[in-house]
């Protein structure tokens, strides 16, 4: 029986799709059977992030409207046979699907997978409501910025109102150097403000850009800090007790001291 987890954020562009792709990949690497669903109807993206855009024949709306069976629409990942993608429709809008249809869909997947991850659209309207309709758990992604944190708090309220239980939080794109200088909200600040359970800290990492360019998950990149962070989140979701990555930027402090001495001498 699958756990159905929706990844959402309120604000766009904070890393929902990247998070969904990487958690799906990481969970499948651990040996779980995983389906990832792109619920962003009309703005399909999970396929390109995962490098599966050339394999799409049918999409979520085709399944809901009976033109394809679920099994036909599920696309197998390039590397991991236990990982499948159900792509969003690109030429339809979010009203093409109802909450009840989403619940039916997730229930059909429940018996065949260990995890179903749903990539929610940004916003708090119908698309978001559809994305959480069938979810057992909700995972909120935010970045340490005022706009993203404010929107995340709105989502916390809506998730609680939908009786989904307390959502958990991933703080994405942390820049340790800025946090150390007191010029970026720290993970502690964000948790204190949102008062929800932390499940991941992901540092800002250029390897996300290069991996996404190639349509590969960053969790394959052994040298990437963000990749390591997403692997850790997947292990925590699976129930393991994994310590949070220390992002204290010792080097930054040293550089700052050296910089100061340099300036004094000059």
């Amino acid at each position, binding site marked *: 029986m699958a756990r159905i987890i929706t990844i959402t954020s309120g604000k766009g562009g904070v890393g929902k799709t990247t998070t969904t792709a990487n958690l799906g990949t990481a969970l499948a690497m651990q040996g779980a059977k995983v389906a990832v669903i792109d619920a962003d109807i009309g703005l399909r993206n999970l396929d390109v992030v995962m490098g599966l855009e050339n394999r799409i024949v049918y999409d979520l709306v085709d399944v809901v409207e009976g033109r394809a069976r679920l099994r036909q629409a599920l696309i197998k990942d390039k590397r991991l046979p236990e990982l499948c993608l159900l792509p969003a429709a690109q030429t339809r809008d979010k009203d093409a699907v109802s909450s009840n249809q989403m619940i039916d869909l997730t229930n059909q997947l429940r018996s065949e997978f260990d995890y179903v991850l749903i990539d929610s659209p940004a916003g708090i309207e119908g698309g978001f409501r559809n994305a959480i309709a069938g979810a057992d758990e909700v995972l909120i992604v935010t970045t340490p*910025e*005022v706009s993203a*944190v*404010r929107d995340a*708090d*709105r989502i916390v*309220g809506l998730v609680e109102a939908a009786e989904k239980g307390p959502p958990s939080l991933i703080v994405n794109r942390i820049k340790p150097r800025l*946090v150390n*200088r*007191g*010029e*970026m*909200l*720290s993970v502690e*600040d964000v948790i*204190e*403000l949102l*008062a929800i359970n932390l499940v991941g800290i992901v540092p800002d990492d250029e390897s996300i850009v290069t991996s996404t360019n190639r349509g590969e998950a960053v969790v394959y990149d052994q040298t990437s800090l963000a990749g390591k962070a997403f692997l850790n989140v997947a292990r925590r979701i699976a129930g393991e007790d994994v310590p949070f990555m220390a992002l204290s930027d010792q080097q930054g402090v040293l550089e*700052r*001291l050296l910089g*100061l001495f340099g300036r*004094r001498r000059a």
Partner: protein
Amino acid sequence: MGFFNSIFGPRNNRSAQVAKERLATVLVDDRYKLTPEMKEQMKLDIAEVLARYLPSIDPDQIEVTLLRGESNDHLKADIPLRRGGSES
């Protein structure tokens, strides 16, 4: 900015601290759907009620803030009394 300050800095005027304080306010205001106009009206109403007991209240001086707490949020009202008001 001195040498000492640039390392250990006055933490409370760093932008992260400013962001945190602004968010703390806006999040509770959002949650309780409290608009600035409603806050103003609330100050006037508080002053009106309290004036029955304390004639020395200036509604313009009242500060009303919603604060996020561990288990409960709090409405904090800071109501300064004019000195000498007790004699009038």
